[in-house]
């Protein structure tokens, strides 16, 4: 058992999360392999974000075990999540950039707080990250309010990658982007995953990005993972919700590409 966990980035076992009597996540188990891009789909309000936020320790869990990169995450997550700061980076849905800091300062923030580096080196690293996510170094002096939606996501990704984490969590990374920008962002995630050897945990509704970048897709329904596997396996799934999701009217439009 111990031997098999070596290649796992995240291991969730029998997780239960609820608010008062309303159970959102019901004895859920999920393994995320190292170096893969896992897409998580589920109904709106079905607990996708709750699952992600529970793994990163923002929401307390009622029972169950969570292991990240082989070390357990404490249930009362104060210290544990702090020491895990370098282990993961998170791209929040709205970017969550600090509005009072410039783009460059936003990217430097995790470096400044966690390491003692010279300002010159931090500037170089920030510029390097900016270029890696496909932005111009001159964008570094802008404030978050001056950025377009796509740029905000890219800066947020650069900040999430500031400490070179092993895992990045992406909460609907392509929502609110036009198809071209969304496609570019997908390609960027794929490239970075390859060059940096990242594990990517991505919550998304974007059928195109599930199709093009995800190695595996997990479907969350009724508080459980009802299907998991590569996209073509999920398309064969017999589960009624998964069928409805991938074979509904909207997804039919994508079928010619998928099949």
């Amino acid at each position: 058992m111990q031997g098999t966990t070596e290649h796992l980035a995240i291991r969730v076992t029998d997780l239960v999360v609820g608010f008062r009597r309303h159970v959102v996540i019901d004895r859920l188990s999920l393994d995320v392999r190292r170096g893969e891009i896992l897409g998580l789909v589920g109904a709106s309000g079905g607990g996708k974000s709750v699952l992600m936020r529970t793994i990163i320790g923002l929401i307390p869990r009622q029972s169950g075990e969570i292991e990240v990169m082989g070390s357990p995450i404490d249930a009362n997550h104060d210290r544990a999540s702090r020491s895990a700061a370098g282990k993961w980076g998170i791209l929040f849905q709205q970017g969550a950039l600090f509005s009072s800091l410039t783009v460059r300062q936003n990217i430097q923030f995790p470096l400044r707080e966690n390491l003692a580096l010279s300002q010159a080196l931090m500037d170089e690293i920030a510029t390097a990250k900016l270029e890696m996510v496909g932005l111009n170094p001159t964008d570094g002096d802008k404030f978050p309010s001056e950025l377009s939606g796509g740029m905000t996501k890219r800066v947020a990704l650069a900040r999430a990658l500031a400490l070179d984490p092993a895992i990045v969590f992406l909460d609907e990374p392509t929502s609110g982007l036009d198809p071209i920008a969304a496609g570019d962002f997908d390609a960027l995630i794929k490239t970075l995953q390859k060059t940096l050897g990242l594990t990517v945990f991505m919550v998304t509704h974007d059928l195109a990005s599930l199709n093009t970048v995800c190695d595996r897709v997990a479907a969350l329904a009724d508080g459980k993972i009802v299907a998991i596997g590569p996209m073509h396996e999920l398309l064969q799934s017999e589960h009624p919700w998964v069928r409805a999701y991938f074979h509904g009217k909207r997804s039919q439009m994508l079928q010619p590409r998928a099949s």
Partner: protein
Amino acid sequence: MATAPLLSATPSGDLLELRPSGSWTAANGTTLEALSTGVMPQLDRSGSVKVDMAGVSELDTLGAWMLEKMTRRATSAGHRAEVVGAAENFAGLIEEVRQVNRHNPVPARGLNPVAARVNEIGRSAVSATDDVTVFLQMLGALFWAILGVLRRPRSLRLTSLVYQLYKVGWQAIPIIALITFLIGAIIAQQGIFHFRKFGADSYVVDMVGILVLRELGVLIVAIMVAGRSGSAYTAELGSMKMREEIDALSTMGLDPVEVLILPRIVALICALPILAFIGSMAALYGGGLVAQFYGGMGPAIYIARLHEAVSVTSFQVGIIKAPFMALAIGIVACSEGLRVKGSAESLGKQTTTSVVKSIFLVIVLDGLFAVFFASVGM
């Protein structure tokens, strides 16, 4: 797995051979920086550089960048640099880092401090005239809406008006009564303490009565209302502006001024005189209590002296100002609310601006009224 990073530099003739080893990762950033600055002098002296990466067990962007910086320093000086022995899985990262930081951005040249200061003064002067325009525009729009309501009385939003009256009037009574009560008490106590030195402590009643009725009652209440209700108006209208609710109203053929702003300002104009009256009474009561327990003056004497000291004119002077102050507060609050842009910071900024501006205007108005009443002899 994570081992401390090391960097050995062995010069052989003209060639400097660098052997990094261990974890070249962000977690060891401080050590890495020290290591790389340590070899810089050697690097500058030698002709060509060879980096042997065989010993590196972990590498991330920061580590790759430190190594890239060293080789780049050599190549920019016209020397030869090569990287050998990199593990397969690092190749992509090293290649990626080779592309970055090529064009150093020219930092934007700042103005000299004097010019920047002058620039700032100019800009604030322009924005001040802007503020006046916005105020007058809102005043005009309000009168237009009032005319509309007079022509079609049914278009007055009675429910909204009553609700706003409840919020800015009724709900404000406790806090306003408390604050003005305390102010009245403080004035009386200070008056008694100092007037007693020359045996004039019975004149405290004159001071409290005139001060409260003519000036302080209405002024304190107006400032409280600007802080309490003006800011609420700005925040409400601002968040409606942010969520495009005001645009939605306009597209349905409704005038936002008539629907949202008129009931709010009318409610404020009705409520402020009432609150000013309640506030003045609370202040007189506070003064009376202090006069009794601190100054030893019975309630009957206090009331009799008050009767002599103040006239209806003092009360009128105070209360006439109230609706005008309410109008100023309401117009500033609503127009600042409509100036909110898309972001939450702008909402906070406009709310602060609204309170500061309306308190300023209330005090300016008070001064203008003082001049006016002095010249008409009230």
